[in-house]
């Protein structure tokens, strides 16, 4: 039986040839025009193929790996389920969602993680789970990092609940280090940022909103990197969004610390002025920055100081957003708009496609120890086929997410996902969906 299947694969019975594609290879940092053959759910060398997909010169790249997706399960399924988040991911070219543990209840015990994994089977794309670092994200007792690792947690994070007590954080990092577990932190001084809903400055003062200075992020980055250096833990900063924290990050990397940094697509493409007259879809954590800081973040991405781009997909229903700015829930959905928004950086001349794909696919996969993020033979056939130049105007009501809180509603974008494959299985076919 097993042998028969292998023969079928070798004979190309289930093989697919992606012909005439613009192949984006983040590993070599290059692109070339050519064919890619997939067999047995994996990328294969040349050979026969039963199916042929004519890519007509459009881009074929490893699927996106999105660290930090919030799904409303458990607790807020009315905002997003694994099924709807997975559908949005497929349409956005995201082939692996790494989901956050800040659910209701939070994922701080192996039993809860197992339940979430059961629900995640409804997603058409791959799902990997994070667990919290401390019980209840309360910053007092560490979770069972060992058991949770065994249950499948790929990283540990209290998200925006910063562990205030540095002695406790230090112990958690030391313990995580002994297990080789990755810890993801939110670099932010919790005292300075308490109650803030916007970046401080002229605009915040004019709008009369409580603001926080980029200094709070710098202090968070410096504290976390000092502890990461002292403990030797594998540490990832979830979102670095302003210039103030970059020198410490560059220094830590130069010293050879096992640290990486991410940023969100919203901080790369929007700034504080987009809030305009209290538009709550632009309320995110940390808040959108001044233009100078946005440009510094883009530059740090292009030079490799920032390793990872995330959508920080955070579904919120209409009721959570139709409130005065200070009272409105923070967060924006992003799975479906991650790729076209990131294309703004390419079209703007800030970065080229293969390097961008390191941050969207290769680096996050490597950091979490996942396969993928590459077009090498033997890698899983997690692929996205897209037209980088196709223009469209985003209508938020067309999104697959249950929640429609995107800051890009009505925005002109370029870059359409045409097809998405997970393990060689097609999970999104734009032409069929719009036939």
């Amino acid at each position, binding site marked *: 039986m097993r042998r028969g299947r292998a023969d079928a694969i070798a004979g190309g019975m289930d093989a697919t040839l992606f012909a005439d594609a613009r192949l984006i290879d983040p590993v070599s940092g290059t692109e070339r025009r050519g064919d890619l053959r997939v067999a047995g759910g994996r990328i294969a060398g040349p050979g026969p193929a039963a199916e042929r997909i004519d890519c007509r010169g459009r881009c074929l790249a490893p699927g996106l790996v999105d660290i930090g997706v919030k799904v409303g399960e458990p607790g807020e399924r009315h905002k997003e389920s694994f099924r709807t988040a997975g559908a949005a991911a497929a349409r956005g070219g995201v082939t692996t969602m790494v989901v956050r543990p800040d659910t209701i209840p939070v994922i701080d015990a192996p039993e809860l993680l197992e339940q979430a994994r059961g629900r995640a089977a409804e997603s058409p794309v791959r799902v990997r789970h994070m667990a919290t670092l401390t019980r209840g994200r309360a910053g007092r007792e560490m979770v069972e990092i060992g058991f949770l690792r065994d249950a499948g947690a790929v990283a540990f994070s209290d998200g925006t609940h910063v562990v205030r007590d540095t002695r406790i954080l230090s112990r958690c990092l030391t313990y995580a280090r002994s297990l080789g577990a990755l810890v993801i932190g939110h670099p932010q001084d919790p005292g300075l940022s308490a109650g803030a809903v916007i970046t401080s400055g002229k605009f*915040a*003062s004019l709008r*009369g*909103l*409580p603001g926080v200075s980029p200094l709070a992020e710098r202090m968070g980055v410096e504290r976390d990197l000092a502890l990461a250096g002292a403990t030797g833990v594998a540490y990832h900063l979830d979102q670095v969004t302003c210039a103030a924290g970059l020198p410490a990050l560059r220094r830590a990397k130069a010293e050879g610390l096992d640290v990486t940094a991410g940023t969100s697509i919203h901080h790369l493409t929007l700034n504080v002025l987009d809030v305009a*007259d209290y538009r709550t879809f632009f309320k995110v954590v940390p808040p959108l920055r001044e233009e100078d800081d946005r440009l510094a973040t883009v530059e740090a991405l292009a030079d490799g100081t920032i390793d990872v781009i995330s959508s920080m997909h955070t579904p919120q229903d209409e009721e959570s957003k139709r*409130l*005065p*700015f*200070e009272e409105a829930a923070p967060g924006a959905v992003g799975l479906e708009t991650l790729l076209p928004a990131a294309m703004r950086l390419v079209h703007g001349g800030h970065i080229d496609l293969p390097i961008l794909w390191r941050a969207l696919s290769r680096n996050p996969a490597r950091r979490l120890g996942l396969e993928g993020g590459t077009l090498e033979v033997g890698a899983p056939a997690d692929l996205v086929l897209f037209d980088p130049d196709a223009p469209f105007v985003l209508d938020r009501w067309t999104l697959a997410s249950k929640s429609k809180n995107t800051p890009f509603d009505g925005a002109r974008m370029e870059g359409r996902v045409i097809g998405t494959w997970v393990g060689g299985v097609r999970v999104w076919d734009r032409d069929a969906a719009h036939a």
Partner: protein
Amino acid sequence: MSFRHRHLLGIEPLRPAEITELLDLAQHYAEATRRGDTHGTALAGLTQVNMFFENSTRTQASFEIAGKRLGADVMNMAMQASSLNKGETLIDTALTLNAMRPDLLVVRHPHSGAANLLAEKVNCAVLNAGDGRHEHPTQALLDALTIRRAKGRLHRLTVAICGDIAHSRVARSNLILLGKMENRVRLVGPPTLMPAGVEALGVEVTDDMAEGLRDADVVMMLRLQRERMDGAFIPSEREYFHRFGLDAGKLRHARPDAIVMHPGPMNRGVEIDGTLADDINRSVIQEQVEMGVAVRMAAMDILARNLRAGA
């Protein structure tokens, strides 16, 4: 007529000509009221609803009197006591009210941007009577009218705004208005009560009263909220009064004919010396209250005209 807005949400969207038009009409109403002519008809047949999510006896009374002097049917809603306790959202409250078809909605709310949010959802004209730390446009207009009457002009004056700038919507609206009318604005207060990035708004900032008041034509004091005193913004009331409270000694740095203003209610002995506040030669605080009614009459009159023209 040049005033083109449907709502009065802040000073920021207004052009200088629109401000002047509002002030001219308010001046007309102030004179009419002094003549004893308090039975206007500009708002006859219109319904004015005062929706106050925050206590304010003075502002609410001022809007109510203004509406009644122009013939509006005025209704006051004390929102703390009603639906908010039942979990109704601001928008639901607004939509409910909107269905009753009021013409003018006067809103006071503890959160910045609340008036903007309401204005998007209702058909009537919205007047912002103070939203969080954002704006309090009628206060800035009544201050402007008071200054214009006392100084004979509203340009090329040096105005010192003193005290808790960071938490003050009055300060924001005033500095925007005075800047638009080409005055020199100084903000004076402890750095803990100064908003970030405020220098970029074209004002001078200092924490020294002598320097801030030097040659000022107008000294505008702000109320220090009690709750700021225990939040590590300032060490104590008495040190605050010593450094930033207005008394005769500090006022000597200003021009001899400088006027003293305060939006009320005052903390005598905290931000202003009681005797000074009552000095009719320097203090225009009572006139501010009087102009408040005139400015609110003018604002509602103009919005009602635009409402009728647009309908």
